[in-house]
């Protein structure tokens, strides 16, 4: 059976993927958010497993993680919340989190649990490619999980090819050198970068993340890439409007009314 991510990537459309931090704004919002997002037409979701020291994240996601932890979110709690998620949600689900909480859970146990629940992939910013390859690849594959790798504007051509060669699913293309949420729009530099990568004709499609916050940036990103991921902008929306109003956010991104 093909992984849901790969299935989704075969669809002839630009994909919208949304990130949110599990346990934020309230501990038990996870399921509601997942269902609402799917209902609004989102293609894929990254569920953030909060971490105390999210060093690749900007202030918005960092604050949501702190709040989620305060609310009582733990790996255990999250897995419990997701236990029956596949009864109501069918789009690809990715858990995004830092390596240490997973390591403490036990990588094998963690992957096993993900598989049971129906998680399709993982994004682990601080798990380096070589360590993954040497130590964890077989485990991930055993449980049918896709590990998504990142590239950035500074990633060398060579390394992009290497990452492409070992990737499955898609490449997470960081829009600019920055932690999450720190850009407000894309300029020429980014367009050139998007074009450059697009022209490389990689084996794996790319989904662009970091700095996408509205229809304009979504459109810019997906002109060159298969899709785009929104994180901070959605967290901001959540903190202002709460979980009920996610539909309007997604519509505004897709410019549907």
């Amino acid at each position: 059976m093909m992984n849901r991510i790969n299935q989704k990537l075969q669809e002839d459309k630009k994909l919208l993927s949304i990130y949110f931090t599990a346990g934020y704004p309230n501990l038990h919002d996870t399921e509601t958010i997942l269902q609402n997002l799917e209902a609004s037409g989102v293609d894929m979701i990254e569920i953030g497993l909060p971490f105390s020291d999210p060093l690749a994240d900007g202030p918005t996601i960092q604050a949501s993680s702190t709040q989620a932890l305060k609310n009582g979110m733990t790996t255990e709690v999250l897995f419990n919340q997701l236990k029956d998620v596949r009864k109501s949600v069918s789009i690809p689900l990715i858990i995004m989190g830092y390596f240490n909480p997973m390591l403490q859970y036990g990588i094998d146990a963690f992957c096993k649990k993900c598989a049971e629940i129906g998680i399709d992939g993982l994004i682990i910013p601080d798990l380096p490619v070589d360590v993954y390859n040497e130590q964890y690849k077989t485990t991930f594959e055993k449980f049918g999980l896709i590990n998504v790798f990142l590239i950035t504007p500074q990633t060398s051509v060579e390394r992009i090819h290497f990452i492409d060669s070992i990737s499955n699913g898609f490449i997470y293309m960081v829009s600019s050198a920055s932690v999450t949420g720190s850009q407000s729009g894309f300029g020429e530099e980014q367009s050139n970068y998007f074009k450059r990568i697009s022209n490389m004709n990689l084996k794996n499609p790319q989904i662009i993340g970091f700095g996408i916050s509205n229809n304009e940036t979504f459109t810019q990103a997906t002109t060159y890439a298969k899709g785009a991921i929104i994180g901070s902008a959605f967290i901001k929306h959540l903190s202002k409007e709460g979980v009920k109003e996610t539909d309007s956010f997604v519509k505004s991104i897709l410019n549907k009314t």
Partner: protein
Amino acid sequence: MSYNINEKGYYGEFGGAYIPEMLYPNVEELRQNYLKVMAEPKFQKEFKQLLKDYVGRPSPLYFAKRLSKKYNTKIYLKREDLNHTGAHKINNTIGQILMAQRLGKKRIIAETGAGQHGVATATVCALMGLECIVYMGEIDIARQAPNVARMKMLGATVVPALSGSRTLKDATNEAIRDWINNPVDTHYIIGSVVGPHPYPDMVARFQAVISEEIQWQLQEQEGKTKPDYVIACVGGGSNAAGAYYHYLEDTDVKLIAIEAAGLGVDSGESAATSVLGKEGIIHGSKTLLMQTKDGQITEPYSISAGLDYPGVGPMHAHLYKSGRAQFISITDNEAMKAGLELCKLEGIIPAIESSHALAVFEQKKFKPNDVVVLSLSGRGDKDLETYINYFKL
């Protein structure tokens, strides 16, 4: 068994570079170049010259007569407190600023706890005319005010870290974020033997001058290059790494690492990583760290801003796990008492970090003929207010 780093950047099972891809080019550039650059005669010459003429090295190896008498053993203090800016930290920042120049960097960032590393970084940036941004926890900014003032005088921008425990760990997060955001022109001068490979090794090599000097200084004074013990406090572990460095593989020399127990190892307010920590990842390195069952990093506590860190460098994790070094935890109270004792017996006001190391003598008995070298990592000028309030002087 080797106690030094292996080719892959690990000390035993600890170390590595657990970094986001955004940092890969920077860290990789450093990894590929650091040994090569450090081996250049011109680099070595410049490094050595600055250590001598600017930092004031060699730092003395001082036989502490009255302290030795009190504890009935032979205590030598390695006087890193006499370095320019008042701690061992500058050995590393001198090295790294030269490295940054070689790599063509124009902007320097750093994290700091006690402020000593921040001052040492601001200092070398002024010396080389480079821009300097220092991240420092909001709590540390308050308790190490003199060092904040010094950084400002030196032209550095001090940015408060407002998240988490608002101490060293969080300042490090902020510095890493800055580096992610500024990947091309910026060098991140990490202040201890922590962070992703090659930082722990690079910093240890720059600090290794400490044990290099101890060897010949001890030869001069004791007629032998090896002490029986080398003792140092461990925050991240850089002064310890420097003091141990040339003795790492020589198990005749016993190593003692002193950690901060805060209000007590079991009090919930502690920074004794070896006792309370478990293997995990912090700031890009696999090491021992204090964390919840769940893998969330714990907020540490110590009266000493420089030891108030939930991890240790991977070298120290390995020294602990392998039993090569003995780890001893010292509470706030024990440290403060030992610090005041050094003032009264030897006329030296130690940094509270170093006071933790000094407290070893109340915990462990040494033989009269033991040659004990203790790394006096810094001076206490930055801690005067803490001491004065504590002792109500």
